[in-house]
């Protein structure tokens, strides 16, 4: 499924992330910003929680399935504006890339950080002692089944694109000068998490 006809291609950037609540499950949030960093659209999901059978049968592919194919893909399809690039800070979300036409880029962290670390981080493994920040950092570092990443440094950031979509790297490099001074790539994810919390408290 690619971009629908109603979507407008504007000079905008998308930011997509998934947060994990031990009690309720996974919440997805998708924020579209103009190149000045101001919000144009925000989409979020109701909590998504796999049942026991799904958790067992999907095994290690559960996170990419939930975060990428279900939540990420659904949110990207909801956007009215089709941004030039979509960034995520969660590796499993990259599983949405084969399903959409928009370039999807993983923000791994600052360029000074290394990609060391082979530990497995599961967004579905709720209730662990791991903090959300640790989990995100681990998630950004780790490889998951079927998601072979090509990692590279750009500006102050370490980024990653799916090896199966090498053109994404060229796309982000080409568009980088248009927003590099305006938007700190890790910052909008904080906005999304706060907005998700606000939407949850509003719905409660």
């Amino acid at each position, binding site marked *: 499924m690619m971009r629908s006809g109603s979507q407008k291609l504007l000079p905008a950037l998308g930011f997509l992330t998934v947060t994990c609540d031990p009690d309720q499950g996974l919440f*997805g949030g998708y*924020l579209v*910003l*103009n*190149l*000045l*960093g*101001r*919000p*144009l*659209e*925000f*989409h*979020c*999901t*109701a909590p*998504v929680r*796999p049942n026991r*059978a*799904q958790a067992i*049968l999907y095994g290690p592919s559960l996170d990419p399935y*939930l975060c990428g194919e*279900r*939540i990420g893909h*659904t*949110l990207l399809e*909801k956007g*009215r504006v089709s941004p030039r690039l979509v960034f995520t800070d969660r590796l499993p979300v990259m599983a949405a890339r084969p399903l959409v036409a928009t370039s999807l880029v993983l923000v791994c962290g600052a360029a000074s950080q290394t990609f060391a670390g082979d530990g497995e981080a599961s967004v579905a493994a709720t209730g662990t002692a791991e903090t959300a920040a640790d989990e995100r950092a681990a998630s950004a570092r780790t490889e998951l089944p079927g998601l072979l990443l090509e990692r590279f440094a750009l500006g102050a950031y370490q980024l990653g694109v799916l090896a199966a979509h090498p053109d994404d790297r060229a796309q982000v490099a080409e568009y980088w000068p*248009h*927003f590099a*001074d*305006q*938007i*700190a790539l890790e*910052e909008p994810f*904080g*906005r999304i998490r*706060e*907005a998700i919390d*606000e*939407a949850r408290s*509003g719905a409660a």
Partner: protein
Amino acid sequence: MAGKKVVMPEPVVCHAWDLSIPVHTFATGWLTAVRRPTPVVTTSATLDVPRPAVLSVRIRPLPVATRSYTFPELPVGRQPAPGGAATPRAQVPPAARRTCTRIEPPRDIVKLQDRLYYLLQPPLESLVSSGQLALPAQPFPYQYQGIAFLYPRYAAILADEMGLGKTMQAITAARLLLRSGEIRSVLLICPKPLVSTWQREFAQWAPELPVSAIEGDQGRRHWQWQQTNPPVKIANYELLLRDADVLRSSAVHFDLVVLDEAQRIKNHASSTSQIVRAIRRGRSWALTGTPIENSSDDLVAIFEFLQPGYLQPSMRSRRIGQAARDYVLRRTKDAVLKDLPPKLFRDANLDLTPEQEHAYRQAEERGIIQLSALGEALTIQHVFELVLRLKQICNFDPLTGASSKLERLEADLDEVAASGKKAIVFSQWVQTIAALRKPLARFRPLEYHGRIPSPQRDGVIARFRDDAARPLLMMSYGAGSVGLNLQFCSYVFLFDRWWNPAVEDQAINRAHRIGAVGPVTVTRMLTLNTIEQRIEQVLEEKRQLAARVFSETGEPDSLGLTQQDIFGLFNLAAPAAGKRAA
């Protein structure tokens, strides 16, 4: 397996022996039996294993429910060019880039879409660092918080202590709203002497915004009121009274009205307060360093402008503090400006000169006798007259001009002038300033009070700032306590004490504010065993009032200087207690 048993023949062992014994064979019939095949009988048995049952688990795609919100794009023409800046950009230190001040929606914004609109705005620091919001200087973190506080609010009081930059915070918040298209017109109301200050501040902090001051004859002012441009108008409180008819008409509307020195409307029934409340507007902000000067009623009166009926005078101060919490932002220098030079208080508790002592005791005794003789005819005005008379004697002996305060002041000023520093002397009375003129002539003092025409006042401040040979400025509390930036001044002398500690604080903070390069020494002059000392005790109680309301820690014992307080200065009984006197 079942069947007949098969008997196998024993193996034949052959040996060759040459025995030479003749052998004869004969048929026995056994060979046929050997050649006959052995019959094999088989039987089959079935394994009794049940057929396995198959359970199919159907994995359905997890449903994902979504909610979507869209936000308006900036109007065309209001979008700053990325990376562009109309004015020099403040250098953002790395620490400031790491801090992240985001706009938080106030509690009275209920609709989730509106709350998310504010929550999802970029951090203010990023607007500055990216050049979208060009500022001449890097704001302090608490100033970012103040801007983020004002921006989403339709009713707000920025009640920072004097000198923390309320002006800059209000201008920047209004500027952001204008640029986002959320508002199109702003009316700033301030005391008359501060109009030019606000014009300068707008030119500094929002140079792209056209600003006009409402002034001139009536015809010109009416024309100005009804113009939609420029987007920012500045008017003074005094002028509102003359233009009340225009302001009450439906033709005049502002998206944002900002009251500077909002304590000017603390009297709910005053004409100024009524006219301000009558102005049609969308948002209402109040700026004041002293939201409570005398009693919590002051805050209630300001809320009548912000949110009519939200607070009631009958509410207890703790309840007022709780109700006002989401509308009021107050920071003190001690809390937010760790790097600001210290403010050093020196209490100059002086004995009266013999001449003053004689005149004072005589005046006090006669005064009390006269007040007592008035009986039921005694009013607070009678008491006030005596208080003022005694306070004036504390400054100067009326016959000889002797003054212990002057002696101390001269000694201190010699030291100030010798060190190349500058000093301000505050007094309640213009007459006192006039009396100081001659004995302090060697310091070539400048004067700033109600008798100095407004057009000349900016020049007085400029000379005081720029002329090293003019180290002394004498000011009245009324004219010089608000809005002026005198942070180049190191010494403040309170020659006599005002009724209200908030006014004294404002006066002191002309010098002790952002930009102060060294400690500010405040000398509070007080004559012992006089009315000044008794008033000081009352002032000290009032000084704690605002903190009590905002900290919600308890019920104040005393709210303001009541008639009871005034009469109590002379151990007189008030004929009708309870009304506020100051």
